């Protein structure tokens, strides 16, 4: 259910580290809580972001919710496909539903995030 090998943020974003690059998306739990995603407000490529910063917004049929980045760096790419097909966030949150790629300025930030087991425990704790 919660993929191994990714890092998880308390605000329900995941990142997949590829060398200095972090691919960021929202978790299955987050997309499920949001409901059908209808639009994503994405940052501009090239913008510098700091960890904990709001970098975009997900709009669903239920609500509008910020997207945070747990790592600092520069936006390398945004998932252009989400403009036409925002439902990819629901259908494939850990794959085709990725949101941005960030060139990390401090990869140690990623290490401080939860792993799959810890995130699973975090969700369980929140549910109780």
């Amino acid at each position, binding site marked *: 259910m919660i993929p191994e090998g990714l890092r998880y943020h308390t605000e329900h974003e995941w990142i997949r580290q590829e060398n200095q690059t972090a691919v960021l998306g929202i978790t299955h739990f987050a997309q499920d809580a949001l409901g059908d995603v*209808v*639009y994503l*407000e994405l940052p501009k490529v090239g913008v510098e972001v700091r960890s904990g910063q709001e970098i975009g*917004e997900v*709009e669903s*049929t*239920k*609500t509008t919710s910020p997207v945070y980045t747990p790592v600092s760096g520069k936006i390398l790419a945004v998932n252009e496909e989400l403009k036409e097909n925002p439902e990819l966030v629901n259908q494939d949150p850990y794959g085709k539903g990725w949101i941005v790629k960030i060139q990390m300025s401090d990869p140690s930030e990623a290490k401080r995030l939860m792993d799959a087991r810890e995130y699973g425990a975090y969700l369980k704790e929140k549910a109780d």
Partner: protein
Amino acid sequence: MSDSPRITVIGGGPGGYVAAIRAAQLGARVSLVEEREVGGTCLNMGCIPSKALIFNAEVVGLLKRAEEFGVRVISEPAYDVTRMLERKQRIVQTQVRGIHALLKSWGVALIKGRGRLIGPRAVEVTDTGGAVRRLEADRVVLATGSKPIKPTIFPFDGDRVITSEEALEPRVLPKSLLIVGAGVEGCEFGFLYQALGVSVTMVEMKNRPLATEDEEISSLVQREMNKRGIQLHLAVRVEKAAVESTRVAVTLSDGQTVSVDRVLVSIGRSMNTEGLGLEEAGVLLGKRGEILVDDRMETRAPGVYAIGDAVGKIMLAHVASAEGKVAAANAVAEGGSHSMNYDVVPAGIFTQPEIGTVGLKEWESVERGLNVRIGRCPFRALGRIHTMDEIVGVVKIIAEQETDRILGVHILGPHASDMIHEAAIAMRLGAKASDMAEMIHAHPTLPEAMMEAAEDVHGSAIHLPRRKVPPAGGPGPS
């Protein structure tokens, strides 16, 4: 009849014709002088024609989404601009004829021509043929309106570089349009032209669109622009605009150059006060060129009143009409003490979705150092909006913390301009957020969001999750 006052109104827009009818209702003998057509900018070149075209865009917008509703449209919907403009013109003509009939029924004499004061007690009218006649008047109401500001850096030619007047007559749609100014008019045209399939770029010198509106409304509008692909350049000015054969090259203050088919300059309106004989009659102008009036709408020349855009208080048709009624009442009963109250002025902005607004904005509450509580209800929290599949939007209520009185309400969403009047009457009667919250709202309707937002002022909206941070003064029903 002979002792009833003679009143001459110059300008037949939504200020002037309303003043004329009201004065006639109150027993005056009234002449209304109009150079062009009754209804003024609002009816002929503003509110009504633009809304007619915006409705076309809505119809096509719905047709394009028909499949989502389980409706099959056999061929791709397309615009027939000629018929759209004919329809718009028919709507305007019907309204113009209606005003003619009303004026006639109240015995108002409509005099075609350009009026000017000859001292405070007479008006000279020059018709299009140059014939001049003089109207004696006991009192005069100036309702001369405003016109688009046309800065000299723009080479206006009525074709490539235009104002709102030509933007309402797009015989041929441009492929690309740059709009200078993301105020109310600019934003309305931006959404309209984008919906008509035009690639729209907007340039605004402030750092947000609709910069005088509530900041949350601005950011929602900005997001809707992004969704539709409207390019928005904020905090920049136009340095230069040059017509180059069929295109216009526009240079921005950040160094960028944009090349488009057409440029619409929408940076505000200036008051029509020239050639009216104002100075000679003792009517004074303010710094912005506005006619100075007291709260009874009387100018510095006793017996001469002024209303509407020309007095530059709030440039809205319905404000002009309200001022017209006040001026008429005071003009008929000389020295009457009716006065204008601008505390509660609702307004609609016809973006997509539209906006309804009344009273204090959040940034104003900050500027004034007021303690406020804010309640919100996104429309998507409620069932009715989902049946329409137009889920974007919010009702935001700003209430004074100490008294719970509603100070401002801002709505973005379908029918927001209709819905705002519930908030306006509530404010007019000094209602509290708790009054609004306790009033039963019919289900399933859009105004339920008003009730929920009022409840949310106290953190007790039923259809919203518990707030992470409870409102000041503690959560729960008050």
